[in-house]
């Protein structure tokens, strides 16, 4: 490759995208409990289960248990700190939902927006049974 050849836009965009996470990190060490397990295995298991169902606010689409974003580390620390203090996992989830909306949780609650999500499968099964019943009846007669 010759020097001075301008980068193709796609290549430049890729390089920029790769560089972006490096630019967005602080110099501070990770929060105390972000990557350290709790001494009590039962509490740690509770914390882990909750972390796997909370969404990272930065790398959206990953759980905070899987994400390397600093904010996800701070959220893991928050979860472990509160579990260690005796708080129930569902109370911590509710605290986060109160701040970020139900978006932050991977376990959708039943409300007006998520009603089709819970209702449609039941409705489809009922319709399916009804359709199948018609078929069976016809076959018996024929």
């Amino acid at each position, binding site marked *: 490759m010759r020097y001075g050849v301008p980068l193709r836009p796609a290549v430049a965009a890729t390089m920029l995208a790769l560089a972006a996470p490096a630019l967005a990190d602080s*110099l*501070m060490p990770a929060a105390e409990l972000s990557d350290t397990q709790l001494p009590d295995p039962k509490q740690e298991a509770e914390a882990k289960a909750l972390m796997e169902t909370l969404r990272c606010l930065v790398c959206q689409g990953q759980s905070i248990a899987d994400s390397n974003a*600093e904010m996800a580390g*701070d*959220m893991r*620390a928050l979860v472990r700190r509160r579990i260690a203090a005796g708080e129930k996992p569902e109370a911590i989830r509710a605290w986060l939902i109160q*701040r*970020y*909306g139900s978006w932050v949780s991977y376990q959708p609650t039943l409300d007006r927006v998520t009603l089709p999500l819970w209702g449609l499968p039941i409705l489809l099964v009922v319709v399916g049974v009804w359709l199948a019943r018609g078929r069976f009846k016809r076959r018996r007669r024929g």
Partner: protein
Amino acid sequence: MRKIVLWAPLVLFLVFAGVFAHGLLSPSSRDIRSQMIGKPLPAFSLPPGAPGHPPLDRAAMATGEPHLLNIFASWCIPCAAEAPQLQQLAEAGVAIDAIAIRDRPEDVAGFLARWGDPYRAIGSDVDSRVQMAMGSSGVPETFVVDGKGIIRHQHIGQIMPEDVPALLAAVRAAR
């Protein structure tokens, strides 16, 4: 009846195709809005974020006058880019308090020396605790807090020059 049954699958398909096309073509937003708008600030008390500035707590925010609460960090590049706009707001008479996320006072001092210092009080939030309590999901973000300490407005991302009038209006509306 038979005609309807024959056409139903095509109609259903078109409905689905329409829904998917809408989802694919409409611009998606990755912003997560705080659900704390209209609610009082969470109770907090932070250590000083930079030398020469008072530390920040909830009581300091409920002074009877509306404030801007700027969530920033010295390591955040858009925060440097919005500094002139914050300066402009400060010059217009708006009190601006700040929370420095995952930062050290000496780094914040360097940032302020370089990009300007529009802030009154600065609190240091080293593990994003207060940020999460506010429902903020990144830096920079700017909240409008009214005189009673109730969060009135959230601006996500850097303040562009064209955002200044809207923020000024939001501060005035919070009076």
